[in-house]
């Protein structure tokens, strides 16, 4: 499944929660683990925070976020037209910060690098910064028992379309392993 969204928002800290929620919603169809969701939310929050408080500092500007999915590879590109980074290597060093040391941990890039599978930073002083991060969202069957079986069982025509037919064994299996969500879907079919 390939997908892409682009969005732009003002460099206000209240937009951080919005940005990470959008990223989480964007990868939700891949059925990521709780940990993967948290990793993506955190990494996006770090990049957006950097754009707002380090890129634009006291100025206002627009932050753009480009999210893409290629198969199970999620990529987030967060870009600002702020002051840029003079020494990227130094900026990425853990605990380094240009902000107030009592307020900032200097951990932003370290968190992005640790929570995502790839991190790339491009910047030009006076022009802005673009942070690109990617993460491969795992397939669930690697983690849960019976996942491989679930994968191979396609929903039968009856479950998907026909109310009168009984769900096939495959769908019944899916209901067990997927819990509430699949259960709700069956409920709809039965009541409909």
């Amino acid at each position, binding site marked *: 499944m390939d997908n892409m969204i682009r969005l732009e928002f003002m460099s206000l800290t209240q937009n951080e*929660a919005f940005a990470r929620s959008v990223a989480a919603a964007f990868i939700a169809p891949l059925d990521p683990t709780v940990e993967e969701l948290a990793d993506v939310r955190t990494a996006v929050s770090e990049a957006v*925070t950097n754009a707002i408080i380090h890129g634009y500092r006291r100025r206002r500007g627009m932050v753009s976020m480009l999210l893409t999915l290629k198969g199970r590879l999620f990529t987030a590109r967060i870009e600002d037209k702020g002051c840029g980074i003079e020494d990227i290597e130094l900026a990425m060093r853990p605990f380094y910060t240009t902000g107030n040391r009592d307020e900032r941990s200097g951990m932003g890039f370290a968190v992005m690098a640790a929570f995502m599978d790839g991190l790339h930073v491009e910047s030009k002083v006076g022009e802005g910064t673009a942070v690109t991060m990617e993460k491969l969202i795992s397939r669930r069957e690697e983690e849960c028992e019976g996942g491989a079986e679930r994968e191979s069982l396609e929903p039968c025509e009856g479950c998907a379309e026909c109310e009168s037919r009984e769900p096939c064994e495959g769908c019944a299996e899916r209901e067990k392993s997927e819990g509430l969500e699949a259960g709700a879907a069956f409920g709809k079919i039965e009541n409909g």
Partner: protein
Amino acid sequence: MEIAFEVKGRSLTVKLRGEIDQHCARELRSAIDGRLHENREVKRLVFDLERVSFMDSSGIGVILGRYRLMRDRGGETAIVNAQKNVEKLLRLSGVYGLTESAGRSRANG
């Protein structure tokens, strides 16, 4: 984000609820510092993160800043009840090396 305080003897517990990011960091910082200023006899600061569903490095900055304040007055800082995703961040940042941590993560059961 919501903040509640509990003072017991020389210990101040800060109970946080919600999501901690840069947006609420300043408010959080000044609220805690205000309490510490009022209660100068407090020698132990406890962050109870049980109800914190999300935290990024802005939260680490707040904790580290308060850790320094407590250290300067000869006190200690502890973090308790962090959820699994928050605990991952705390471990990565090395905050657990500076603060005392107690209480199992809820997600770890």
